[in-house]
């Protein structure tokens, strides 16, 4: 029997406000432990929360960007559970009345477009961080750092619409791009500003009902999410094929083994005893404010993609990748402004540039080649100063050193040979050296031509203009 996976994702994204969601403390990252705290975010007796208006605005931005309906009335609720990183013994979240509902994100996988529904977006506060002593003997304590406590989060809950790990990855990348375009989240999974839990089940293809699901946690990169899902789907299918059952439980992904392991079962699941937080009044969001925020939204990935296709006449595939992050799109547009051949720019970015960045695990805003440098190199190709082949070496040097193409070309003598005399001399040398091959060519074995061109290029250390080599060699061989 064939099975298909059903996946829903819950993403927690830290909002980039300067102050925390319910107090005035700074959200600054990496400070000394417990220095960004006050009575409110350390849960002192008698302290009270006050909602950060900016955090609400950011969450509304996300709701609008994902086509959600913004609730005119939403309510903060308490999620009750005990843990040392949770100073009040409850997390202020939203439950029955979330901020935004019923939206979607469009993804493209293998050329097929698909809408993933957004069930709800709600706001909540982040918890603190625990630091454990190294060994029980040496350092028997655990410590709590409340600097992160109260940093605003949005939780984005997708519909159970995702059918493969690739779709999950694509959904996450698209969601992250939206958050970044909106400038409300850094979207860094490794640093935990963008976190993802997954609900996974499998069912026989064609069946309508969902199978028993498990919840996956502890996935700290896009790769982890895809790997964990692949493993879990396989695990569930194998269980069903061998006549066993999937147990509803929470499972942790182990990045070292690539496996998921049981954390807690359904019976041990928390009863969070949600109820409306009496310390906070309901959030009433009027239409005017929503429209104000809507009017201030930046161009979003989908809109930008459409514009790129129209304005730059590049294929949808290119446009999709070039708009996958705001920084990438900006890089592209800056380069095109200096070198107005969009498809050429796109090719260089998608092939050479992305390969280098991927190898070094760098983001595009950390790229040593600036848009001005890339355009400068493309101009050198265009005006014939360097060949396309040499350009690849120049590109690598630019990436390595951060220098301009012109300087590299000059210093290393990589200027293209356009001098007919010089090329003809090289051609004569090749014809002399390979008389046998020349004869075969002349007898009609045309394939040999490529070989001879290669030899001429070698002689000129790749600097000869390929068109000229072609033209002059053909002429010479006809003689």
């Amino acid at each position, binding site marked *: 029997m064939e099975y298909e996976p059903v996946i829903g994702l819950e993403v927690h994204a830290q909002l980039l406000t300067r102050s925390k969601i319910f107090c005035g403390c700074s959200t600054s990252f990496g400070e000394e432990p417990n220095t960004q705290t006050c*009575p409110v975010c*350390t*849960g*002192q*007796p*008698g*302290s*009270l*929360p*006050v*909602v950060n208006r900016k955090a609400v605005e950011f969450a509304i931005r996300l709701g609008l960007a994902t086509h959600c309906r913004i609730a005119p009335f939403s309510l903060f609720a*308490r999620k*009750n559970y*005990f843990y*040392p990183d949770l*100073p*009040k*013994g*409850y997390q202020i979240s939203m439950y029955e009345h979330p901020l935004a509902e019923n939206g979607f994100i469009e993804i493209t996988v293998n050329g097929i477009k698909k809408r993933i529904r957004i069930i709800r977006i709600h706001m909540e506060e982040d918890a603190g961080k625990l630091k454990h002593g190294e060994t029980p003997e040496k350092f028997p304590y655990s410590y*709590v750092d409340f600097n992160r406590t109260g940093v605003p989060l949005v939780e984005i809950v997708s519909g159970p619409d995702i059918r493969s790990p690739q779709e999950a990855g694509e959904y996450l990348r698209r969601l992250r791009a939206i958050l970044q375009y909106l400038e409300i989240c850094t979207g860094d999974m490794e640093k935990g500003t963008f976190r993802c839990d997954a609900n996974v089940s499998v069912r026989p293809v064609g069946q309508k009902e969902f199978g028993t699901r498990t919840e996956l946690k502890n996935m700290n990169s896009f790769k982890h999410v895809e790997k964990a899902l692949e493993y879990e789907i396989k695990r569930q299918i194998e269980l069903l094929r061998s006549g066993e059952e999937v147990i509803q439980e929470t499972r942790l992904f182990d990045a070292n083994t690539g496996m998921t392991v049981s954390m807690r079962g359904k019976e041990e699941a928390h*009863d969070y*005893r*949600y*109820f409306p937080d*009496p*310390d*906070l*009044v309901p959030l009433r969001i009027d239409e005017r404010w929503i429209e104000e925020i809507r009017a201030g939204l930046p161009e979003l990935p989908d809109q930008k993609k459409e514009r790129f296709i129209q304005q730059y006449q590049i294929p949808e595939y290119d446009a999709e990748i070039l708009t996958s992050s705001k920084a990438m799109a900006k890089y592209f547009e800056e380069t095109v402004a200096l070198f107005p051949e969009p498809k050429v720019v796109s090719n260089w970015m998608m092939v050479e540039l992305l390969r280098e960045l991927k190898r070094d695990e760098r983001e595009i805003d950390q790229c040593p080649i600036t848009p001005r440098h890339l355009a400068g190199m493309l101009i050198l190709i265009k005006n014939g100063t360097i060949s396309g082949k040499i350009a690849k070496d120049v590109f690598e040097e630019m990436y390595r050193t951060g220098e301009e193409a012109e300087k590299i070309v000059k210093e290393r003598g990589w200027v293209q040979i356009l001098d007919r005399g010089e090329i003809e001399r090289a051609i004569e040398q090749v014809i002399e050296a390979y008389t046998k091959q020349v004869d075969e060519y002349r007898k009609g074995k045309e394939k040999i031509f490529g070989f001879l061109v290669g030899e001429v290029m070698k002689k000129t250390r790749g600097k000869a203009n390929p068109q000229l080599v072609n033209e002059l060699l053909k002429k010479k061989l006809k003689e």
Partner: protein
Amino acid sequence: MDLSKLTIHDLHELLIKKEVTSREITETLFQRIKEVDRKIQAYLLLTEEEAFRQAERIDHKIRQGERIGDLAGIPIALKDILCTKGIRTTCASKILANYIPFYDATVIQKLKREGVVFLGKLNMDEFAMGSSTENSGFQITRNPWNLERIPGGSSGGSAAAVASDECIAALGTDTGGSIRQPASCCGVVGMKPTYGRVSRYGLVAFASSLDQIGPITKDVTDCAIMMNAISGYDPLDSTSVPREVPDYKQFLIQEIKGIRIGIPKEYFIEGMDPEVEKSIWEAIELYRSLGAEIENISLPHTEYAVAVYYIICTAEASSNLARYDGVKYGFRSAEYEDLLEMYMQTRAKGFGQEVKRRIILGTYVLSAGYYEAYYRKASQVRTLMRSDFEEAFRKVDVILSPTAPTPAFRIGEKVDDPLQMYLSDIHTIPVNLAGIPAISIPCGFSKDGLPIGLQLMGRHFDEGTLLRVAYTFEQNTDFHLKKPNLS
């Protein structure tokens, strides 16, 4: 002249006339505390040093000829549920026995700005859960009128301290009657303001949607003075209301002609003490004779008040008290092997019986499968009770009732019967559920010499009318002038 027996407004006159100094008043109060608190046990902590420093500052101002406010230099004491920076705040709970806040409650900041002299922190039922102050984790406070009787609760320390002249006035908090019922038991004035009138920031939460800070004073004038000082919107409390605060002293007028007073039939219940009933009817007759219009009214959902209250307040308490986990501050049990055991041992040993009872009840009513039947239903009935009052206030300006069904009961009498204890708040609870203001004033004494209290309830943010009606009663009676004999 015994300065400790005077009111805020008496002492203010003497201070501005330079007939006494704040230092003298403060000395007298600490002397009084030393004499009688052995018997009353109202104080958990005295802040003598800081009190004298503050008194000196005010005296200096007066000597410099600076104008001072009504409360400058006046010794006041605080229920130990209000956070005071650098001064231990325990909520009369072992779990907070060593807790020293690093911030001041908003009301404390306001009173500091007024130049108030703080004498110390007062006993209460642990986390304000109780009606007798017997639930204190530390000591039992006695009723100054009869040391075998309870002072009421949970602000029993506050009411007893005011009644025994161990402070000039006090702050209490009221979640289901915790200011009014002890004020009634001790023969003093206590007001629970409208929910949202006074900032809760720094009030250690018991039930957030019901808690409100208010004054306990020797007379209605002092109540108005205290209300002026503590009222007002606070950006740190989202539930406080941005609404202008009138000068409450302007309502201290002896004129109630045409004021309509409602008598709710549901409040005159079976089991009400006949002496209480008699005093209340005498009060009603007095009002009638002074020109008020007396109307019979109905608040039909009153019978559900206690049930609704004990669902909502316990639910909120179970969540509010989750922070006392031994991790960050307060008591932590020494006996534990792992995290779960640390939580369980700390909370088992740190909380008293009544607090644990309410945490368990509250956890239950919020649990999956019970939420709809209990918490949601209670919230709905609460809305109905609010409408009862709205309806009634279309016909009348204030509603009058006894504050408590009986005078102060004996220490130990109801400790083992929580339901009986809960019923002592039957007249005060609906006010908190509706969020309206109410005041309790002395209106008589039982044959045994125990005070009886009269409760007046008003419209949202209409503390002014309550003060006016209360003041008129006070001006025509002398119950508030009687003092317990503590020698």
